[in-house]
């Protein structure tokens, strides 16, 4: 895990360095565009302050060293420590992600089971159609449509996660309830594609399992169809689903970027996006590191889940 994270950190750093120029170039361009004269000396001072002139590997080492001590550097654009910026948004991001994950699984697994058990029924076809629409519709479009409908017919403004009066308020029960009220739409929009995908995976796996010999064995034992379905093939088909948590977690975090911009959600996604546009390297690097960290954590969780679910993996060590 540590090694993976380290490799990711190098990659992240290199990627940020790849585009020509750095934050100062775009900063200078902005200043020039607004007609200001840029003082050479001032630039040199800034360069020195941010260490932009030292060789890349030195910059990297410094960045890593600081990060290990909990200092993620300073954002050029916001002129604030990166840590504060991310800390502000990460809890909300995680909240939305977890709700989305729960929503996705709660919806996708039962529908997948139903679709497989009643293959080619009207219900199966209906879900299949909705599933493909869900997969094919871009999230931001869906978000816009939902926003329009909710505003038009329910008079609710759906942008953001909080009503204006709670925006700057401290955490309280009322603020939390307000958050819950705002959650469904982002969760629905962000979870839609994942849900549709998961339904297909669940259905496919289960259909595979249903044709296996051990299902027939169980049926020949006199087990009722319903029990049969849940005890054996569903149990086996859950495994691949569990292993998808690994890529679902970062997928949700990064996949929500565009949606979050459209819906104006205060999450990490838009932050990362803007930092990339402005070449705000420490912010971008740290965000990417956090995404990578989430991926590694997700993979780790799904590995543990798999070991718990599947005795064939559990016993491998003892058998050899």
């Amino acid at each position: 895990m540590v090694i993976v994270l380290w490799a990711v950190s190098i990659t992240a750093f290199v990627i940020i360095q790849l585009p020509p120029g750095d934050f100062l170039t775009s900063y200078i361009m902005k200043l020039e565009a607004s007609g200001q004269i840029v003082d050479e000396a001032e630039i040199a001072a800034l360069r020195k302050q941010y260490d932009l002139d030292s060789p890349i590997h030195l910059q990297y080492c410094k960045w890593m060293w600081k990060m290990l001590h909990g200092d993620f550097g300073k954002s050029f654009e916001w002129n604030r420590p990166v840590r504060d910026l991310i800390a502000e948004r990460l809890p909300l991001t995680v909240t939305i992600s977890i709700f989305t994950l729960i929503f996705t699984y709660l919806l996708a697994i039962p529908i997948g089971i139903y679709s497989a058990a009643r293959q080619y029924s009207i219900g199966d076809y209906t879900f299949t159609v909705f599933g493909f629409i869900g997969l094919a519709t871009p999230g931001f479009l869906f978000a816009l449509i939902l926003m329009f409908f909710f505003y038009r017919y329910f008079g609710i403004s759906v942008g953001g996660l909080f009503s204006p009066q709670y925006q700057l308020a401290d955490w309280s029960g009322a603020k939390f309830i307000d958050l819950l009220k705002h959650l469904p739409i982002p969760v629905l929009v962000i979870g839609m594609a994942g849900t549709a995908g998961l339904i297909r995976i669940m259905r496919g796996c289960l259909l595979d399992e249903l044709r296996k010999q051990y299902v027939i064995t169980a049926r020949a034992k006199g087990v009722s169809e319903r029990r049969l379905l849940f005890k054996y093939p569903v149990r086996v088909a859950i495994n691949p689903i569990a292993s998808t948590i690994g890529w679902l977690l970062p997928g949700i975090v990064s996949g929500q970027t565009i949606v979050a911009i459209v819906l104006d959600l205060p999450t990490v996604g838009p932050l990362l996006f803007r930092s990339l546009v402005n070449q705000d390297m420490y912010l971008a690097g740290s965000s990417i590191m956090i995404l990578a960290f989430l991926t590694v954590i997700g993979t780790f969780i799904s590995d543990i889940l798999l070991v718990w679910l599947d005795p064939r993996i559990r016993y491998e060590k003892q058998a050899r």
Partner: protein
Amino acid sequence: MNNNNSLLELKNLRTYFYLDEGVLKAVDGVSFKIKREKTLGLVGESGCGKSVTAQSILRIVPHPGKTEGEILFYQNNKKVIDLARLDPFGKEIRNIRGNEITMIFQEPMTSLSPLHTIGNQIMEAILLHQKINKQKARRLAIEMLDKVGIPIPSQRIDEYPHQLSGGLRQRAMIAMALCCKPNLLIADEPTTALDVTVQAQILELMKDLQKEFGMSIIYITHNLGVIAEITDEVAVMYLGKIVEYGSIDEIFHNPLHPYTVRLLKSIPKVGRKARMRLESIKGAVPLPLGLPRGCRFYPRCPQFKEGLCNLDNPPLVEVQEKHKVRCFLFG
């Protein structure tokens, strides 16, 4: 009606699969009787309808298949049930499955769930059909595992299928099939996937258990050597129909149908001249989809008679007592 000690009687059993390409007649008018405590062998090449016949009896034919005809099952309490009329998902047939009629399958590797211990799977069958608590069921399961010759059953019961060898898995399957003391055991090529020494052990075991429990066995195989070993009567199937039916001695020493004759000639024998080629039957079993008129074997038959075999389907005639054959050459 049940004067001759029958246990199961098939009358004109037909299982058709209604596919987009047409009607696939997997089993087309099969009739036979199984007596109590006897063993019937069902022989034939792959795809001749042996397995579907077995599945039809338990009513577990896969989806587009439909079963018609009569499957009369003479229960212990003298009641006769026509299994073909039961709802395949209903309670009645489920009470018979795994209890009075059980089945062992060809591949012990895949026919046990990989995620449940064998104990769990055996106890499931016991708990479904007997009104006893879990501890008792577990004790019974251990007893059965012991009976089928699994060493240290009290430890093996908590193991997963992938921890057992093929032979042990098949023994576990047999334990599962026998734990409710069935009247009829359907064995669908139970030894095909095992190596020869294990095969012999399993056959021995099945014979012993048959004596002990007094059950009948339908033994499905394409291995004539195994048939000779274990069965009392043999039905040779070809393309969904029985082509020859008789006692084991009759079939082996006096085979009549050209198909049976060829089948027997294709077994290697000890003592035969070395370097001689084994005889084989020309061609392969065609798909039973849109079959031609006439005898189903005539395109591959060496004794085919123009104007007779390709026009009509021969009936099953009794040439001797306990020996029936479906061929124009006889009768």
